């Protein structure tokens, strides 16, 4: 008998020896939680009383009642009139270049299941996408013309979402076929805004915003927001999910994939490595998270050249730190990030840190966020950071803090003020052309 069948035969026993113990001590807590949790009524599961295929067909079944047609025509006429008025009073917004500084547009955010735009200067806000569905996690395209977001049915708390794209004014909403995304599946806009790369499971798909069928470009890979390299977007940064823990680059169609940076096994940290990775706005460098060798408690930001050489720790702070959620400033001269300090034995959240992209000591910026840290974004012109408590990101939504007003922080002075509106998502700041 070969070693393979013997090993396979023994493996269940080995795994039981390693992991199977007596009934866990949290059994009673779990059952107590269940007693406090109401079951969903059976009627709220359509597939319980209608076969799934029929239910799905019904959901899209067209109906043509005459009254509806008349109302639709009236609405269309009103919309057309409104559009003519709007076009006459609002000059068209010039699309931004995809990389580098741009003019500040609106802040796009989710609140209570709808998508809004807010003006950080005037405090005005308005809803651009509404309806019975629950929309969250909006991300504006690099040229500022479109917004992608996740959608689920209002009653659902499942971590499965449709990917939806709309024009920046909320019009032309279109559901893109992705076979459902997780809330944590990364989404990255192509520089020209014509498609997105999304991770479904552990594979990367290209999803055109015109609604044509998505196709897989790579497997066992993970991409993140900011995966496209400036200036042309011809290369995409990815994390390999198979074999070595490594970063690689590939063309957007998945060709030419090769690894550029590997973390040795002895230095790996499951909950740190490549938690955030991003190209610099000029495409010359890559910032990423990893555990510094010999520091089991820490997770720090590293920066390296575009070809994977010259990796070095960015900040020189000597405290025991976790640095995460890094964001390059639009001009590439600074990097902002969330951080926690454990010098006194407990992890304590710190204000957003900002450091020169060439390294050095960290400067604290703005108020100390809640313990979950900050969900923040640079303004396109690089002068401000908009920051929200990360608690509002939870899915299903947090019961204690489902929404909160964001804080606008002046990067030069550190002065901050609350926006006039509240949000329940990571903010996304629209870039506008000069």
């Amino acid at each position, binding site marked *: 008998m070969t*070693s*393979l069948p013997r*090993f396979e035969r023994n*493996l*269940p026993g*080995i*795994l*039981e*020896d*390693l*992991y*199977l*113990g007596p*009934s*866990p001590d*949290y*059994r009673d807590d*779990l*059952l107590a939680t*269940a007693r406090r*949790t*109401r*079951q*969903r*009524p*059976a009627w709220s*599961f359509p597939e*319980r009383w209608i076969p799934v295929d029929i239910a799905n067909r019904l959901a899209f079944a067209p109906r043509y009642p005459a009254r509806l047609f008349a109302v639709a025509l009236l609405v269309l006429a009103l919309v057309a009139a409104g559009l003519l008025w709007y076009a006459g009073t609002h000059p068209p917004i010039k699309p931004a270049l995809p990389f580098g500084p741009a003019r500040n547009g609106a802040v796009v955010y989710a609140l209570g299941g709808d998508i809004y735009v807010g003006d950080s200067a005037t405090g005005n806000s308005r809803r651009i996408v509404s309806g019975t569905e629950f929309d969250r996690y909006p991300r504006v395209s690099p040229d500022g013309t479109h917004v992608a977001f996740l959608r689920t049915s209002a009653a659902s708390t499942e*971590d499965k979402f449709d990917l939806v794209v709309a024009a920046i004014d909320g019009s032309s909403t279109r559901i893109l076929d992705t*076979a459902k995304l997780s809330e*944590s*599946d990364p989404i990255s806009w192509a520089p020209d805004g014509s498609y997105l790369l999304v991770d479904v499971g552990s*594979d990367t798909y290209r999803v055109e915003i015109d609604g044509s069928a998505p196709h897989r*470009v*790579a*497997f*066992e890979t993970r991409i993140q927001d900011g995966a496209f390299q400036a200036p042309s977007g011809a290369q995409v940064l990815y994390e*390999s999910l*198979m074999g070595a823990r*490594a970063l*690689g680059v*590939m063309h957007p*169609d*998945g*060709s030419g*994939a090769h*690894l550029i940076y590997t973390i040795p096994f002895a230095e*790996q940290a*499951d*909950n*740190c490595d490549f*938690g955030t990775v991003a190209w610099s706005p000029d495409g010359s460098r890559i910032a990423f998270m990893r*555990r510094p060798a010999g520091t*089991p*408690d820490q997770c720090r930001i590293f920066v390296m050249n575009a070809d994977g050489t010259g990796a070095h720790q960015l900040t020189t702070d000597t405290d025991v730190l*976790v640095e995460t959620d890094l964001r390059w400033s639009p001009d590439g001269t600074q990097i902002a990030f*969330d951080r*926690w300090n454990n010098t006194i034995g407990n992890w304590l959240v710190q204000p957003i840190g900002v450091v020169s992209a060439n390294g050095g000591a960290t400067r604290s910026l703005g108020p100390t966020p809640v313990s979950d*840290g900050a969900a923040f974004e640079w303004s396109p012109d690089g002068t401000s950071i908009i920051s929200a408590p*990360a608690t509002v990101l939870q899915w299903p939504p947090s019961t204690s803090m489902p929404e909160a007003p964001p804080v606008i922080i002046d990067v030069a002075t550190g002065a901050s003020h609350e926006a006039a509106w509240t949000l329940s998502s990571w903010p996304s700041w629209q870039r506008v052309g000069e």
Partner: protein
Amino acid sequence: MDQRALVERARQGDHDAFAALVDASLARLDAAARLIVRDPELARDAVQDGLIRAWRDLPGLRDPERFDAWLRRLVVNACLDLLRRRHRRVREVELNPLHIPSAPDQSSALADREEVDQALKRLDPNHRAVVALHYLLGMPLHEVAASLRIPIGTAKSRLHYALSALRVNVDVEPSPAPSPVPRGTVA
């Protein structure tokens, strides 16, 4: 009372029936979660997430015979979701030591187990999930694939890779190196 009857009762809101179902599966689900997430506290969170979700959504389960497979899927997906969330937003970086039974055993067998444990640590969570579902929870591969929302071919390739990696670490006799696995390969 058989499991089908317990599921039917739990679906009607019977907490005692749900407790019986939990008692029958909790230890093994906890073991699978600890194998996948490599942290007892995280495993506890994932198992609780999965089981509370199961309780809440039980009225929507159409086929009581599928309860076990459904429950395993909920817990394993809760593990992977939790890891993905933590991967993006780091809170703690220290992993707690795993539970290793202290029962007397031959030293070589214990060494094998520790080597398997170390080899599992090196695997990606997605590979560990396939190992947990197939070898610890006894699910056939087609159900593993369905549970993880991956094609059967992907489930097979992940299992092949995981086994190759594990075997290299515990084989006494020389064995071939694991098959090369593409990284970021063109689909």
